[in-house]
């Protein structure tokens, strides 16, 4: 359904007065999602992952420059096609309740999302009711304001705004942040259910354990680039993970070794070779020469000279 090849996002910043500086935040991002699949994108909290969602919706800030190929349903996703599909075939489940207008009742806002995704005025009330009952929200919740919703309810309303239409690609940006385990499990269950109906779900999160509960495939994202694409089952044993960063990430969980690392792996524009040389213990001369390409390994892919 979605195929991204070698995506890069650059930002121009003004340092002082009129001097400009360009920083490359995302480079070499590759991603593929098939219908009915939940693809999790895991990586450090911060710029990279959310930018992917924004790039897919065409809502990057003005000083951003995007390069690379994005194919949606086999055809290139040009800015014109993007603005036509946004909200209709590509929908975003917002991260927090602040995405809702605090002055409008939630029922009205879900109805508006339905209208914007192309549902006729006649069908909107039934669609909205159906969305609410699907997520186990009572009818009177539609008359409430956002501030009256509890964390779990808010999450369900936000999911409803994205799924009330006919979108085939659902982007979920940190859907479980700030939620307790039960509510998080529920929110993830909705995503799984959406995938099971044939939609493609892109789940962006920093929390591996959360992602693994429902994901089919996992893309590991670090220093602005894809370092590994693995199946969810690869995380069950330790030896199956291919890239040093993925192993370090898995190791860092409190349930595992709880070991962290100091050096943030940053991409500078003059990085030659693999950006992970400094923290990798398998590095040698070839690592300093060129940045490794993303190559296939088993049923996944990895960006390492030695995998």
């Amino acid at each position, binding site marked *: 359904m979605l195929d991204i090849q070698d995506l890069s996002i650059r930002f121009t910043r003004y340092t002082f007065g009129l001097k400009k500086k360009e920083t490359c935040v995302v480079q070499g991002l590759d991603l593929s999602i098939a219908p009915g699949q939940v693809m999790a994108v*895991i*990586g*450090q*909290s*911060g*710029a990279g992952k959310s930018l992917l969602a924004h790039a897919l919706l065409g809502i990057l800030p003005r000083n951003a420059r995007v390069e690379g190929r994005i194919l949606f349903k086999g055809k290139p996703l040009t800015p014109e096609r993007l603005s036509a599909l946004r909200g209709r075939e590509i929908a975003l489940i917002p991260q927090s309740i602040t995405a809702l207008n605090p002055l409008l009742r939630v029922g009205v806002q879900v109805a508006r999302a339905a209208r914007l995704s192309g549902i006729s005025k006649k069908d909107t009330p039934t669609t909205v009711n159906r969305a609410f009952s699907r997520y186990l929200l009572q009818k009177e919740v539609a008359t409430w304001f956002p501030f009256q919703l*509890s*964390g779990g309810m808010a999450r369900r309303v936000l999911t409803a705004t994205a799924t009330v239409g006919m979108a085939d690609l659902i982007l979920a940006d940190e859907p479980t*942040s*700030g*939620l*307790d*385990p*039960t*509510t998080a499990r529920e929110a993830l269950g909705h995503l799984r259910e959406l995938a099971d109906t044939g939609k493609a779900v892109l789940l962006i999160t*920093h*929390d*591996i354990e959360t992602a693994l509960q429902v994901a089919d495939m996992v893309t590991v994202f670090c220093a602005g680039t894809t370092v590994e694409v693995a199946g969810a089952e690869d995380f069950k044993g330790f030896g199956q993970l291919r890239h040093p960063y993925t192993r*370090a*990430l*898995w190791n*860092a*969980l*409190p*349930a595992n070794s*709880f*070991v*962290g*690392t*100091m050096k*943030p792996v940053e991409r500078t524009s003059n990085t030659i070779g693999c950006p992970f040389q400094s923290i990798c213990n398998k590095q040698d001369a070839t690592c300093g020469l060129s940045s490794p390409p993303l190559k296939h390994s088993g049923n996944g892919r990895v960006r390492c000279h030695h995998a």
Partner: protein
Amino acid sequence: MLESRSLAYRYGRQRSWLFDDLDLQITPGEIVGMSGPSGRGKSTLAKVLAGYLPAGRGSVMIGGRPLPVSGPCPVQLLFQHPELAVNPRWKVGKILQEAKEPTAPLHQDLGIESAWLDRYPHELSGGELQRVCLARALSSDTRYLLCDEMTSMLDALTQAHIWRITLDIARRRGLGLLVISHDTNLIARLCSRNISYFEDTTMH
């Protein structure tokens, strides 16, 4: 020792008590966890313990005396969202100087780079900003740190790293820590005991 006696709080006279008759103690050097689902009142309790909100009933005592009304408070609170805990118009350098003594060794321990000092908060990542907030909270007056979901927004590597440093500093200075988190694995790793007041689902 930081303790609360029969502490209770509610948001207004028409609302129900968020927590009532709550007694807890944290001794210096102790690492205590507080688990429970979100939205139940853990953050509010942390705010009352740190002096951000006045107690509805009961009291908060430190070393037998009530919390100071003015001047640096020995109980410091760290928030889940560091970007809300700093003035967005200030540069990072100024944020760090708001604490009584900005110390270079502490900055080095926390990995705070001099390049950051000239940046604005929205230009730092979540993990970097949280480390800045930590540095700000660790003045020499601080005796207790209340960490309210401090690393929930961070990836596993940054989380593990920040907790290693925090525990290290807490051990060196004999600080008491309260770790509020919904991640039971994390609490099991870090804490010697857990307060399960908010786990009780029959409360509400």
